[in-house]
């Protein structure tokens, strides 16, 4: 599964995108956030406050309880500040 990061989430994790193999126990966005936080200090700093993290599944906004089976690309980013 492809993971992409934007803005300060990207900067804290230290990479813009990566491809990961997920354990079977990771079924939802929330599970994925929890799993990522165990991957290092950068991830932990980026994802420390899950409420501040927005998620998109295949280019569409999703909640943290959304299921990720069949998804190709998951994006993590801060609240948006466009417009």
């Amino acid at each position, binding site marked *: 599964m492809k993971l992409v990061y*934007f803005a300060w989430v990207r900067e804290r994790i230290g990479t813009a995108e990566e491809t990961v193999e997920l354990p079977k126990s990771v079924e939802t966005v929330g599970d994925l956030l929890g799993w990522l936080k165990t991957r290092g200090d950068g991830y932990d700093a980026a994802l420390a406050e899950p409420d501040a993290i927005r998620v998109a599944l295949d280019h*569409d*906004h999703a909640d943290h309880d959304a299921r990720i089976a069949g998804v190709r690309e998951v994006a993590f*980013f801060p*609240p*948006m*500040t*466009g*417009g």
Partner: protein
Amino acid sequence: MAHVRVAIVSEPLDITSEMERVTAGRGDIGAVVTFTGLCRDEDGRLEALELEHYPGMAEAEVTRIAEQAAGRWDISDVTILHRHGKVKPGEVIVLVVTASKHRHAAFESAAFIMDFLKTHAPFWKKEHTAAGAVNWVSAKRSDDDAEERWKTAD
């Protein structure tokens, strides 16, 4: 159904040509509303804004917002152009143009689009100050409230 035009671009936006494209050769448009969002200099403190975006999703999400507006109001044309990359104070960040037979549809759809762009379009602003500091702009609670009002309206 309304004609929808969406573009995410790195070049300065040309408002005049967008307005002309919307109205040229048409006799059924009575009202055109434009919203232009400009980069402010924050009392001279700001040197530039850097706009990061999510390529692919930005186009998809902005198109969804345009289509929501077109489904909710009787508008014949909706244009949304959004800059990415570095933007200097005084330059245009976002341009929305809505056209309709009647003024209220044009006004309300443009305001709706702006409220949803603020909270839904995957763009992030980084400030570069004249003093050399660099920091991400925080999302505003007031923008969430602004979006919320469209749920109770009608």
